[in-house]
């Protein structure tokens, strides 16, 4: 393979638009996901302001339905998913001792597809109204919804879903093929394991969503009748397809957070993870069972007692591996020397919160009782306990923990702790009362409630809590801004880390590892440190390092689909064809142009090593 001498360093914006480096793509995911997180949060605040008193008229009924739909869709698909991919990108290749993911080009494509899907969805706000059929998009509400809001939902999710799917495949291949010598499956850090299982879930869960969205699109754009009972369709088809995707999606979100918590708990207790193999097995089992339980979202749809009972018991079974995880975290801390850094605070806050979300999950698994819980605020409380109390708290733990690795800076610990306490207390204040609101008869997705139903006080408390969560989030952003002024001293190991991502200096060299490390066990960096070594033992001599070239094509491929989607929404064949032509042209170019990448020469690597840069 020839070395391309023409490789030149791009600067600024162009570098970010063309990058195929997993570290930079991780940052892109983090920034974009953070942006959508703020948008989804603002939508949530509007809803809580509307509900702070009965019969309020802060927003209209129609606007409220748009807000609830956009809040759910944005938070799940465009905040939680990309934030998970942010950490998977930033951390997984480093944790397994790889120089990048298996398909760097595809990695960039995945990001840009997700990003333009999100832009597509949010463009609906400016183009005649957002989707209003709930993030679940149940037919016939979604198929008959007026305006083009739901079309934006369908096409936005379709585009970003393609990005997620190829991202998942990429990480499967990366983790299977690119582990450093000695990094056997049963030595992989738990974050890598959970990313692996999550990628597997993506592989199997996203195709049903794709199919469902295609059916919905055909029904809306081309008058198909999949879900139209008047013409022989069946509304339950959508519910099944959506939840066959939708339930595994929940585990896609939570597993990487479990992984982050495992790393943080172990590092800040200064102990190896208790029951590592049980943790791995529990992760795989949760992923497997996640596909067997979708009907518990449909207990009230009328599938009958046999289906409901089977899915009830299957759902309850998931509590067992989840419990195994909780107890293993507790016993990792048991006998440890716990340091309460901000990252650890989030992990410590995560455990009881997630357990509370978990137990209400078991309660919801009982069909007969679920007839009371279902679609009430009890469910709203439950899934915010697992998604905010689980996923988001885990992501925050990961953020404070991996921030130095991603940005060569640390976040301020004091501000971090203020962020934790305001957000954590605000969270419980918001969502704990909602359990009772549900039990007291308040349905979910209501734009208002009448006075005189004993629902006023708890709703007010809930809104106050939401304000506190907003304050916490603002503190985080202040913290991020302040951190930009502080650079990190290279070759420091900020948390006394255990895994490979801490074995390299700051900033992370472009090629990650000058020499691929030799892994001698679980927590490889910790093992070396305990053996008195400062660095990993290399598994190869210093040599030329082969690197991929950046490319602008992923960006344009995504723009092409973005344009084509507008063609579908506004029924303009010309626009649709132009969009698809852009995408296919880019694919053609990618196929015919030989791109061998470039090499970083041995000399440069050796120089970096001499000066402590790698």
């Amino acid at each position, binding site marked *: 393979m020839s070395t391309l001498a023409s490789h030149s360093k791009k600067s600024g914006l162009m570098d970010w638009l063309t990058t195929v480096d997993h570290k930079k793509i991780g940052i892109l995911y983090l920034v974009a996901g953070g942006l959508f997180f703020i948008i989804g949060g603002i939508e949530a605040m509007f809803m809580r302001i509307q509900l702070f008193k009965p019969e309020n008229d802060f927003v209209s*009924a*129609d606007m409220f*339905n748009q807000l*609830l739909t956009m809040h759910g869709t944005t938070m799940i698909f465009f905040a939680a998913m990309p934030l998970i991919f942010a950490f998977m990108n930033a951390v997984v290749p480093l944790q397994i001792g790889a120089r990048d993911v298996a398909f760097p080009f595809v990695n960039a494509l995945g990001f840009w597809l997700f990003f333009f899907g999100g832009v597509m969805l949010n463009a609906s706000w400016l183009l005649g109204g957002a989707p209003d059929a709930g993030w679940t998009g*149940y037919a*016939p*509400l979604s198929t008959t919804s007026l305006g083009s809001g739901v079309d934006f939902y369908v096409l936005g999710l379709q585009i970003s879903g393609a990005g997620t799917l190829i991202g998942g495949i990429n990480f499967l291949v990366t983790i299977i093929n690119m582990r450093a010598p000695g990094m056997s499956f049963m030595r992989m850090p738990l974050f890598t394991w959970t990313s692996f299982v999550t990628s597997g879930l993506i592989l199997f869960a996203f195709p049903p969503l794709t199919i469902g969205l295609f059916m919905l699109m055909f029904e809306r754009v081309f008058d198909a009748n999949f879900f139209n*009972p008047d013409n022989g*369709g*069946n*509304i339950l088809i959508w519910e099944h397809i959506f939840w066959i995707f939708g339930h595994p999606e929940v585990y896609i979100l939570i597993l990487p957070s479990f992984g982050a918590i495992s790393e943080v708990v172990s590092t800040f207790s200064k*102990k190896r993870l208790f*029951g590592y193999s*049980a943790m791995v097995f529990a992760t795989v089992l949760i992923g497997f069972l996640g596909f067997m339980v979708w009907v518990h979202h449909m207990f*009230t*749809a*009328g599938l009958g007692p046999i289906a*409901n*009972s089977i899915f009830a*018991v299957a759902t*309850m*079974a998931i*509590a*067992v591996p989840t419990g*195994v995880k*909780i107890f293993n975290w*507790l*016993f990792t*801390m*048991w*006998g*440890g*020397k*716990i*340091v*309460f850094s901000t990252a650890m605070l989030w992990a410590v806050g995560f455990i009881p919160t997630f*357990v*509370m979300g978990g*137990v*209400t999950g*078991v309660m919801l698994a009982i069909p*007969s*009782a679920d*007839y*009371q*819980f*279902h*679609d*009430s605020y009890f469910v709203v409380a439950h899934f915010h306990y697992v998604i905010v109390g689980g996923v988001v708290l885990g992501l925050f733990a990961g953020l404070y923990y991996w921030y130095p690795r991603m940005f060569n800076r640390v976040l301020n610990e004091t501000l971090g702790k203020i962020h934790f306490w305001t957000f954590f207390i605000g969270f419980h204040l918001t969502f704990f009362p909602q359990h009772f609101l549900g*039990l*007291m*008869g308040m*349905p*979910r*997705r*209501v*734009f208002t409630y009448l006075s*005189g*139903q*004993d629902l006023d006080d708890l709703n007010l408390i809930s809104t106050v809590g939401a304000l506190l969560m907003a304050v916490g989030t603002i503190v985080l952003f202040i913290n991020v801004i302040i951190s930009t002024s502080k650079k990190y001293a290279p070759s420091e190991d900020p948390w006394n880390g255990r895994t490979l991502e801490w074995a390299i200096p700051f900033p992370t060299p472009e090629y990650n590892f000058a020499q691929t490390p030799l892994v001698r066990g679980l927590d490889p960096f910790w093992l070396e440190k305990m053996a008195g070594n400062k660095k990993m033992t290399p598994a190869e001599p210093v040599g030329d390092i082969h690197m991929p070239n950046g490319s602008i094509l992923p960006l344009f491929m995504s723009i092409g689909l973005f344009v084509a989607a507008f063609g579908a929404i506004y029924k303009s064949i010309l626009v649709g064809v132009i969009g698809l032509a852009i995408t296919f042209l880019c694919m053609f170019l990618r196929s015919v142009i030989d791109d061998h990448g470039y090499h970083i020469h041995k000399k440069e690597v050796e120089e970096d090593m001499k000066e402590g840069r790698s």
Partner: protein
Amino acid sequence: MFAMLALLLMGCGDPTLSTLLPQGEVAKSQYSLMVLSLAIMIFVLLVVFIIYAIVLVRFRQKKGDDSIPEQVEGSHTLEILWTAIPIVLLIILAVPTVIHTFNVSAKEKAGKNELSIKVTGHQYWWQFEYPKDEIATAQELVLPVNTKVHVELTSADLIHSFWVPSLAGKTDTNPGDHNKNYMWLDTGSKTGVYKGKCAELCGASHALMDFKVKVVSKEDYEAWKTNFKSATAKSADQAQGQEVFKKNCLSCHAIGKEGGSTGPNLTGFGDKEKIAGILDHNKDNLKKWIRDPQKIKPGNNMPKLNLQDDDIEAVADYLLKMKLENK
């Protein structure tokens, strides 16, 4: 512990709306499962929280202590323990779960002597039919006390969900003949008016799709049926209102045997608890509703009729005088 939990939850909420103050055996059996599961779950929470508290207090790093804790790999005994105990707890929960699931499920046909009603969800109102008595009413379901009622559920447009928290958990009303649902609703031993809700997002006014279940004594129920069947749209002293109603409303709304069925049946309107399911039952509210229904329930199917003020006045009087009386 059970008793304590029950006490804790009692008195939570509006007695005509809260699932925690159940009436009738259906809601009570659902409540009993809620309490059982909550008890088991609180036990789990206690175990976790106690270990958690011990860990956080005992194992924080002390100042100046730089020693490395023992790197424990795990413990087979513990792993088996915290796999087996949850399994046992779940079996304790799963057995009554399955039994109750079968017990509360209703078959397609009601028994010969059982009261059977048909519920149809509309954007944004509820139609209640009594097939045996050929009665079709709306928004207020009148039922006799101490009766287990077989309910058939369907929808005229999209998915709604029929929920009377005090009397029975919800079941979806699915559009289309293939997906009719059936459920039991037990009226319990107390008479009273219970609040009902739509629990599935169904459009702009989903939040306003309230209805009432009026549980009355058996005698009152029989009298109500008889009066309902003999009611007519005729009103001697409200001739103008009757005329306006006939011209503008009758094509959608029926009174007695006359009129269309695309809108709620208005027989006995004067006796209703609420106007449009949500407003207090008085003339001002009724006039407000007739003047601009979209303002009160956005997205509903009743058009703005642009009636003259005196016509509105007349039709409101006419409707409010439409009471079911013993003849």
